[in-house]
Structure formats: C-alpha cells, structure tokens
C-alpha cells in the first residue's frame, strides 16, 4: 500500500513527497486527522475505539517549555561554529507517530551544499526508493 514518492530535483530547495499514505506517520496524521466530511450523528453508529494518542502533539501552544528550549538553542549557537552543520535530530515519540526534524547546530551560509544533502536524506528517511517524479497510485479505475 505504500508508494512514497519522494523526489527532489538535484539542487532543488523544494522537497517533494507524493502522498498516498506513503509519507512518515507524522505526515499522514497531519494530513488526514480531523479532516473530511462529518456525517450526521443519527446515521453514524460509532467512532470505534480510535486510539490516537498523538492528537495533542499536533497542537502547538507556546509555553514556558518552548521558551526555555529556544533559549537553550541560543546557548548552543554561541558554542557552535557557524559553518558546522549538525546531524538532524530525529525524535520519534513512543508511538513513533510524531517525528520532528531538527537541525542541532549552526547552519551557515558556507554549509549550503551540505544542508541540501541533508535535506535530501531527510526526505528519504522512511524510504530509500528514489523516483525521478511523483507517481500516482491507481486503486480505482473509472
């Protein structure tokens, strides 16, 4: 069921993925959750045991924790040379549903090419199939 079409033209600043449920789980959750037509309650019998613990992870609320984290980033900036690119810090929660990509250290102007390479590898983090162009899935034929 997965056709992940992650394709970046070499050197392109735009990373692409093809949908179809083939992205990271975080992408899928963000794409589909709380979307779509809501059906009348009297017809619908049930929303059966939906176990989506990550729902709250999508809501961004600025908090003291956020502020302290930003301040910590400032601290890091002071000790990291501007032209050193850190490895992306991929953090998955227990359910593996929320993936945050975060560059740890300074991304300087000199590191432009390197950062491009990192962006490419991030795009393929769940899928090593490289396709030149997005391809559409066809589950249904008219």
């Amino acid at each position, binding site marked *: *069921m*997965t056709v992940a079409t992650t394709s970046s*033209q070499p050197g*392109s*600043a*735009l990373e*692409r*993925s093809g949908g*179809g*449920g083939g992205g990271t*789980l975080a992408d*899928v*959750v963000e*794409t*589909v*959750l709380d*979307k779509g*037509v*809501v*059906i*009348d309650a009297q*017809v*619908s*019998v*049930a*929303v*059966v*045991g*939906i*176990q989506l613990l990550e729902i709250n992870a*999508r*809501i*961004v609320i*600025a908090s*003291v924790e*956020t*502020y*302290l984290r*930003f*301040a910590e*980033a*400032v601290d*890091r*900036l*002071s000790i990291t040379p*501007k032209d050193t690119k850190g490895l992306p810090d991929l953090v998955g929660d227990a359910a593996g549903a929320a993936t945050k*990509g*975060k*560059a740890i250290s*300074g*991304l300087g102007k000199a590191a*432009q090419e390197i*950062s491009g390479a990192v*962006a490419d590898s991030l795009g393929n983090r769940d899928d090593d199939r490289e396709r030149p162009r997005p391809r*559409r*899935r066809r*589950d*249904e*034929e*008219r």
Partner: protein
Amino acid sequence: MAEQGLFIYGIVPCDVEPTPDAEGVGDPPGEVAAIQHGELAALVSPIGLEEPLGRPADLTAYEGLLDGTAAVAPVLPVRFGTVVTGEDAVEDLLAAHHEQFADALAEFEDRMQYTVHGRFDEAEFIGGLLAENGSAAALADQIRGRSEAESREQRIRLGEMISQAVELRREAENRAVIDAVGQYAVANAPRQPSHELDAVNVAFLVGADDEQEFVRALEEFAEQRRELIRMRLTGPLAPYDFVSAHQLVE
C-alpha cells in the same frame, strides 16, 4: 461472530469502483467495496465494531485509498473513523445529501490538493533575530554560559521573544506563499502549525492544467528562502482541507 459495521472512506461518483487489490483499514485489511446510490457511491470496508482503529496501518490505508482514488476521480474524504451500521445506513446517507455531495464532487473534478509545509532552520532564524534585535542579543549575552537556574527569567523572556518572532514571521510567510503561488490554485486553506518552528503550512487546491506552473512557482519561492526555511510539497492528495464547507453537522 462479533458485530460488524462499515467504515466509510469517502464519497465518489457512481462509476468509480475499487480495484481488487485495494486494501482497507483493520487487521487483516478489509476488502473495499463501493455502495451506489443514484449518481453517487461510497467507498467502504467491513470492520468489527470491537476492533480498535487508528493504528498506523489504518491511517496509511485510509490515506492511500483516498489519494489513489483522487488521482483518477473526484472524491470527498469522510472523516477518519466514521463507521455506520450497514449498507442501508450508507444508502440513507447518500440519499439524504445527494445534491450536496454531487455538487461538491463536481467542484473537485480534475482538481487535487497540494500541501505546502515549511520549517524554519532554528539556528538560521535565531541567528538572524539576534543580529537585528538589540534587546534579544542583550538577553542572549546574559544567559550564555550560565545555568538555567541562574538565568531562568532571562531565558523565558528571550524564548518568548523568539517564539513571538516565529509567529509573526510565520503569518508573513503564509501570506507570502499564497501571494506567490495562489494564482495557480483554485483555492487555498491555511493550516494550523504542527511544530513550533513551522514557517509555512498551507493547503492548495490545484487544477490538473495548472500543476506544473504551481510547482514551478513554489520551487522559486523555496529557492529564495533555502537557507532559512526547509520547504516541502506533499501531493497530489485527496482534498482533505477543502471539504469543511460540506460538513453535515445537524
């Protein structure tokens, strides 16, 4: 045998039929069928009413089926987790809202959703802010080399300034991306940020004929910001963010 219901994926024109390899939600995956009524059909699969939903495989199956369908025909996604008692309930649903659903489907003919997502590079963003904002830079000097306990108040003030700057810049970037590529889209729908460093999060409904121009304009937008924002384009997708006008909540 446990009681069964029907999981509804989406509503399509009546000439759409699932291919035999279409897999639905559940474990093992349910077989997807189309239940027709008038000009419409609903894509459904059987699901045990005791069965827990929302596993990763359920979500990817749901999105896979809808996006795959959207590639060949218009589709109205139905909210994930909608389960009805049986075929009769599906037909009642299609009959009760036939005109609304048919009108909505006509709007989505040859149009698909693309979601544009951008995230600020943290170091680049903060570095830029400290360079242009004297009071932020002064606070940064006060916290450097000091423990969190010693400089907690300054840290919170600085972090709040950064957070507000991100929010302001995010609003500006969302407007900018709509200005830059909106002319190639039929509609746009700004989305809630999903991360504290979100820079851009907007869904666009794009006609098949405009897809290339849309992507080209977006690549240009991304190129202009390549150091500050990591830009991603997801799609083509079913029109998840464009069905809210058709919600039936009575």
